[in-house]
C-alpha cells in the first residue's frame, strides 16, 4: 500500500520512517488533496482508520498538528498523514464527512484542542462535560492539568421526530455496568432513533501523563484505563514506547506478556457471556460462566499477585518471572477449564429461550461495520476478517499458531459464538505459550529514552484493537500519549444496531459490543440532575505536595 501511495502522492509529502513498514508523511502545502489522499487509502479493500492524533506542537513547530493513521491489515502496513494547522486559523478539512469512523476523532480534537473540522456532520461537544466553559481547551500546553474551570450547563439533545417519545437508557441503568446515556426515541416499544451522549468517566489521563508522570509511572495509569482489559492497554503503551526508543525486549518477557494477555482475554469473554445471560434473565448461565471465570481469576492472582490489575509490565519487559511452580499451576487450570467451558457452551446453546432472545437482533451489516471502523468480536461477527494478533503480530504471537473465528450474520448470537470460539482458541494458545517459553532475562537494559521520537502500536484486547500512539519528550517525560480503545469505534455503530428493535432488546444489544466506557474517559464528577458540580481538587488528599 505504501508503494502505490508514494507513486500517487509522493512528491508533495515529506517522508519519515517510524519502523518496519510504518511510515509517516507530513503534508506541508496544498491541503486540498488531503481529502482525496484519505479517500484513496480508504477505498482500498482492507484498510481502516487506525487512530487520529491531535497535538499542540506550538513550542516546537509553532502550530497544531493533526495526524491520521491508516492500517492495511492484509499488507500489514501503517501510513500516517500529518497536517499542520496554524494557530491563527485553527481549521482543517473534515474526513468525517466522507468516512463515518472519523467523526468522533474530529469531535474530540474540536473539544480538547479547539481545531475546527469543516463539514463535520455532528459538531456537538463529545468529551468535555456539559458545563465546561467555551474556549478552554485542556490538551493545549498552556492549560495546567489541575485546573478545573466551571461554566453554565447546557447540552443540545436532538428533539424526538414525528411524535416519537424519549426512552432514556441513561447514565444510571441496571443493564449498563458503566455510565453512558443512550437517548432512545421510541414509538411504543420499537426504537426509531438513538442519540448517544457518553464520556461520563473521562479522567483526562493523557493530560495527567503529560503533566506529572514519568515513563514507568504512566504504565500504571495505562493499566487502569479499563476495568477488564487493563493489561492490554499497559502492553500497548509499553510497546509504543519501546518502538519509539528502539528497545528490543527479551523473548521470555514477550512470552510472559502473551500468556497474561490470553489469561485476560479468557476472563473477559467469560465475564461477557455471564452478563449476556443475565440480561436475558437466564441467571443459571450467568452464575455458571462466572463460576468458571473464578478459576481464571485465581490463576491470575497466583501468577501476578492481583486478580485484575496484574501490574507486571514495564517499559522494556516484565517485572516478575513465571517460576516453575506457576507454570504447572497454569497447565493444571487450563486442563480443568477446557472441560468446563465445553460443558457451559453446550448448556447455553441447548437453552432454546436464550438462543431465541439472541438470534436476529442488533444486526450490523458488513458495510456498516467497515464504515464505522468497528474492531474485535463485533467486526468479526459481521464478516470482517481482522485480528491484530495475526495481522500486526506483536509479543510472541508470530511464533504461535491460532485461527480467527469469523461469522456472517452479525447478530448478537454471532458475537456470542465468536467470543466462545475465541475462549477455546485462548486456551490452546496458553498451552502452546507455556510449552514454548524460552529462558533468559525478563527485563531489557537500556539507558536514556531519546526525546522527540514517535511510536505507534496496537494490541488485540478482548473487545478489539487498542491503539497507543506515543511521542517521547525531554527529562524522562512523555510529550504526547494517545489512547484509542476499541469501544471508541464500536460505540458509534450502536445507534445503527439499535434501530428497529424493541426497548426490551436494547440492553442486550448495547452489551453485545461488550462496551468499556471507562476506556473512553471523562474529567469531572458532575451531579448532572441537580446541576451542582462537585469538583475533585487534586490537592484534596492533603498529602500531595
Amino acid at each position, binding site marked *: 500500500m505504501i508503494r502505490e501511495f508514494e507513486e500517487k502522492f509522493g512528491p508533495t509529502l515529506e517522508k519519515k520512517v517510524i519502523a518496519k513498514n510504518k511510515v509517516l508523511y507530513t503534508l506541508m502545502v496544498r491541503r486540498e488533496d488531503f481529502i482525496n489522499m484519505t479517500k484513496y487509502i480508504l477505498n482500498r479493500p482492507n484498510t481502516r482508520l487506525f487512530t487520529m492524533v491531535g497535538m499542540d506542537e506550538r513550542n516546537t513547530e509553532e502550530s497544531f498538528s493533526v495526524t491520521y493513521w491508516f492500517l492495511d491489515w492484509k499488507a500489514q502496513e501503517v501510513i500516517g498523514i500529518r497536517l499542520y494547522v496554524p494557530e491563527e486559523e485553527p481549521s482543517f478539512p473534515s474526513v468525517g464527512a466522507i468516512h463515518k469512523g472519523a467523526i468522533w476523532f474530529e469531535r474530540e480534537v474540536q473539544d480538547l484542542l479547539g481545531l475546527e473540522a469543516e463539514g463535520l456532520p455532528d459538531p456537538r461537544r463529545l468529551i468535555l462535560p456539559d458545563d465546561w466553559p467555551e474556549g478552554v481547551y485542556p490538551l493545549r500546553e498552556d492549560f495546567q492539568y489541575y485546573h478545573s474551570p466551571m461554566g453554565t450547563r447546557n447540552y443540545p439533545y436532538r428533539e424526538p421526530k414525528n411524535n416519537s417519545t424519549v426512552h432514556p437508557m441513561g447514565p444510571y441503568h441496571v443493564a449498563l455496568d458503566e455510565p453512558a446515556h443512550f437517548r432512545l426515541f421510541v414509538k411504543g416499544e420499537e426504537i426509531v432513533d438513538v442519540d448517544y451522549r457518553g464520556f461520563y468517566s473521562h479522567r483526562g489521563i493523557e493530560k495527567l501523563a503529560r503533566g506529572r508522570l514519568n515513563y514507568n509511572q504512566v504504565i500504571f495509569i495505562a493499566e487502569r484505563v479499563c476495568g477488564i482489559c487493563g493489561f492490554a492497554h499497559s502492553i500497548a503503551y509499553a510497546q509504543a514506547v519501546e518502538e519509539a526508543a528502539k528497545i528490543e525486549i527479551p523473548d521470555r518477557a514477550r512470552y510472559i506478556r502473551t500468556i497474561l494477555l490470553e489469561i485476560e482475554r479468557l476472563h473477559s469473554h467469560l465475564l461477557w457471556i455471564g452478563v449476556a445471560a443475565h440480561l436475558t434473565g437466564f441467571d443459571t448461565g450467568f452464575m455458571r460462566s462466572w463460576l468458571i471465570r473464578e478459576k481464571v481469576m485465581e490463576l491470575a492472582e497466583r*501468577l*501476578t*499477585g492481583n486478580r485484575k*490489575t496484574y*501490574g507486571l509490565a514495564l517499559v522494556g519487559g516484565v517485572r516478575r518471572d513465571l517460576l516453575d511452580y506457576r507454570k504447572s499451576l497454569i497447565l493444571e487450570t487450563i486442563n480443568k477449564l477446557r472441560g468446563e467451558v465445553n460443558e457451559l457452551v453446550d448448556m447455553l446453546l441447548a437453552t432454546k429461550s436464550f438462543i431465541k432472545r439472541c438470534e436476529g437482533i442488533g444486526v450490523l451489516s458488513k458495510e456498516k461495520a467497515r464504515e464505522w471502523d468497528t474492531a474485535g468480536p463485533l467486526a468479526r461477527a459481521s464478516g470482517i476478517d481482522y485480528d491484530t494478533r495475526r495481522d500486526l503480530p506483536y509479543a510472541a504471537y508470530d511464533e504461535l499458531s491460532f485461527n480467527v473465528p469469523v461469522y456472517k450474520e452479525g447478530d448478537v448470537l454471532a458475537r456470542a459464538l465468536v467470543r466462545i470460539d475465541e475462549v477455546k482458541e485462548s486456551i490452546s494458545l496458553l498451552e502452546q505459550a507455556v510449552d514454548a517459553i524460552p529462558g533468559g532475562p525478563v527485563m531489557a537494559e537500556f539507558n536514556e529514552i531519546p526525546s522527540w521520537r514517535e511510536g505507534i502500536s496496537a494490541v488485540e484486547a478482548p473487545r478489539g484493537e487498542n491503539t497507543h500512539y506515543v511521542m517521547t519528550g525531554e527529562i524522562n517525560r512523555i510529550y504526547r500519549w494517545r489512547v484509542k480503545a476499541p469501544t471508541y469505534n464500536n460505540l458509534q455503530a450502536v445507534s445503527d444496531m439499535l434501530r428497529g428493535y424493541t426497548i426490551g432488546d436494547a440492553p442486550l444489544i448495547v452489551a453485545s459490543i461488550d462496551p468499556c466506557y471507562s476506556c473512553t474517559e471523562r474529567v469531572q464528577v458532575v451531579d448532572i440532575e441537580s446541576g451542582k458540580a462537585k469538583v475533585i481538587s487534586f490537592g484534596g*488528599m492533603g498529602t500531595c505536595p
Partner: protein
Amino acid sequence: MPITKYYPFEPEQAPLEYRGVPEINPHLCVGCGACVNVCPPDALIKIDDYENGTRKIVLDIGRCIRCARCEEVCPTRAIRLTREFEAASNDRICHVEIVELKLAKCRECGKYVDYTERQLQKVLSLIPPGILEFDRIREKLPLCRECKRLLTVVNATKFEEEMRE
C-alpha cells in the same frame, strides 16, 4: 457443592503471592526517599522539617494502588506488601502511617542536612574499607552542602598553594 462462602463471618486468607497493603518497618527504614520517587500515585511523601531536624516518610494506604514498586526499589527492604487486603476503616487517619527519622547535623555549621543519620551510617557501611580515599570520604560525608562546597574550595586552594611551592 455450593462454592460460595459466608465471607465476613468465615475469615478469608489471600494467597501467598497476593500484593496486599504496604507496611513500613521503622527499624529498617533509613529515610532515603527512593520509594517516594517511584510511587506512581504519590501515596508515599517525604516531609523534611529543618527546624527541629526530622524527616517524615508518610505512607497513605488510601492512595496506594499496591503496585509493589516501592518494595522493589527499597534498599533496606523496609517497606513490604503484606497479604492483608481488608483496608476498610471508619476513620481516614488509620490509613496514614508515618515514620519519623532524625536528620543528621552538619559537623561544621551544625545545621541540619537533607539526609538522615541512618542514611549516613548505611552509606558508610556500604562503602568497602579498601577504597583509596576512604578517610577523606568519611570526613566529607557528614557535612552540609555549603560546608562541603567550602571544604572543596579550601582543599582546592590548599592544593593550589602546594603546587605553587
